[in-house]
């Protein structure tokens, strides 16, 4: 059976070239980077080499990159590290409703610690309005965090405009760029952000390596205290192979970004076109201003987990923001904040493509997916009369 991995937003396969770059640091070069003898020195060198590669991907200085163990750690570190380091200047932070749990739940933690948090509303496409950001700023505001692009609906936020607002008011701006770094151009200078989170496993690198860009001169309170690793800003024996892998993955992403983007965009547009033939399937997020590999829908009358299971039985791997498919049993807050009804959100399905997907994958998916929808609608009490249309339906969010 054909296997179509369309869940790159969950995690990417590891690029073989990345794995090869990691290999030496598992066995021969197992030394601790802090050690002063040769094997330790070579591990240290590998880390510094990776730091330069990651810095080059996002156009920062190497010294501005702090390695972490994941995107979630980078997000926790950024939000809490800046909120705490600046708490004498104010105890108000602003985050958007498009954020990942690792930002939202960090914000909630800060609320418990006495911070005030504003959760920015978004429009039906998931856009944060820079004007709303501006209006939310108070004398107490020290930090704004807005995601670069949503992994759930693909929408790319107007970060430059938000950065202009933040700069004008002298407020630190963080962005969660886990879904974008390595996939679309991410340039910390052009975006105008002060901090930026990333994760290697989102661009064909290994699990276990993430990073936080922290603009030079910015003071940040550590999340993990201990030794002097990462210049005293993130303790713990470094995961040398994973960091070396993140560096290599960053280098490859930079070199191959254009080709990869063209490839996935072509496939994604073919998928859009095909799915538009199915009635009552609504695109979520913005149709154009979105991640090139990202196709997300709400399918009316049926539920996401059921779709995922039937697709998986056909070798097609995707994701959903439905309540039933989340282990927390809550519909995606991102979908709800965009004004999508809870019952439509139950029909959420997300296909995220990657460099190794092929035209044939899309064609296969386009024959299987409508059948899955049809089968489930036959079971659904709400779908009387609905099925597959002969001609193209409208493929946008209509609520």
């Amino acid at each position, binding site marked *: 059976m054909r296997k179509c991995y369309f869940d790159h937003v969950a995690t990417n396969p590891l690029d073989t070239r990345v794995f090869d770059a990691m290999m030496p640091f598992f066995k021969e070069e197992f030394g601790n980077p802090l050690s002063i003898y040769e094997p330790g020195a070579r591990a240290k060198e590998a880390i510094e080499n990776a730091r330069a590669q990651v810095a080059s991907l996002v156009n920062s200085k190497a010294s501005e990159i702090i390695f972490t163990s994941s995107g979630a750690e980078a997000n926790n570190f950024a939000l809490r590290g800046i909120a705490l380091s600046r708490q004498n200047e104010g105890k108000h932070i602003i985050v958007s409703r498009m954020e990942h749990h690792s930002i939202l739940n960090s914000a909630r933690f800060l609320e418990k610690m006495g911070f005030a948090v504003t959760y920015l509303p978004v429009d039906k496409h998931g856009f944060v309005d820079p004007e709303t950001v501006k209006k939310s700023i108070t004398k107490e505001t020290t930090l704004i965090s807005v995601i670069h692009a949503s992994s759930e609906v693909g929408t790319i936020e107007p970060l430059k405009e938000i950065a202009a607002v933040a700069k004008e008011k002298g407020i630190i701006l963080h962005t969660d760029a886990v879904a974008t770094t390595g996939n679309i151009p991410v340039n910390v200078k052009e975006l105008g952000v002060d901090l930026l989170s990333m994760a290697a496993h989102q661009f064909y690198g290994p699990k276990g390596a993430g990073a936080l860009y922290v603009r030079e001169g910015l003071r940040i309170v550590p999340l993990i205290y201990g030794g002097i690793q990462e210049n005293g800003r993130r303790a713990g024996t470094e995961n040398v192979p994973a960091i070396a892998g993140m560096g290599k993955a960053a280098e490859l992403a930079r070199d191959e970004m254009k080709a990869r983007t063209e490839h996935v965009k072509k496939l994604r547009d073919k998928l859009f076109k095909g799915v538009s033939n199915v009635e009552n399937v609504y695109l979520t997020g913005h149709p154009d201003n979105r991640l090139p590999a990202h196709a997300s829908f709400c399918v009316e009358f049926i*539920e996401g*987990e059921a779709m995922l*299971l039937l697709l998986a039985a056909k070798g097609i791997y995707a994701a959903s923001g439905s309540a*039933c498919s989340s*282990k927390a*049993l809550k519909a995606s807050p991102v979908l709800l904040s965009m004004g999508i009804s809870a019952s439509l959100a139950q029909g959420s399905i997300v296909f995220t493509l990657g460099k190794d997907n092929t035209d044939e994958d899309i064609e296969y998916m386009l024959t299987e997916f409508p059948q899955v929808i049809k089968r489930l609608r036959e*079971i*659904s*009490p*709400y779908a009387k009369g609905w099925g597959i249309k002969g001609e193209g339906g409208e493929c946008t969010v209509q609520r």
Partner: protein
Amino acid sequence: MYSAKVMDHFTNPRNVGEIPDADGVGTEGNPTCGDVMQIFIKVKDGIIIDAKFKTFGCGAAIAVSSMVTEMIKGKTLEEALAISKEAVANELGGLPAQKMHCSNLGADALKKAIEDYKSKNK
């Protein structure tokens, strides 16, 4: 995640559909936050002689609906009423903990269908 039996009942659900001249219909659940099950029964001499369902929901919800309709066919109303959520889950080889309460609505929908039948036949 799911047992083989759950997957079987989910991918090949038994008794899908409606019974136009059903003797009792029961609906349980809420589409805005999860699963909805609709059970149709046909009763003769106090015995359930046919059952069908329509379900909006996850794999567990569909499997539960399928299993419940299978379990009640040929049973008396009293026997059917005695079927608990746990009994359905057991029959399916178990359900994940978080699905036990939110997707295991079959027994509740069934009770409503039987009540519906009884209220019509008082």
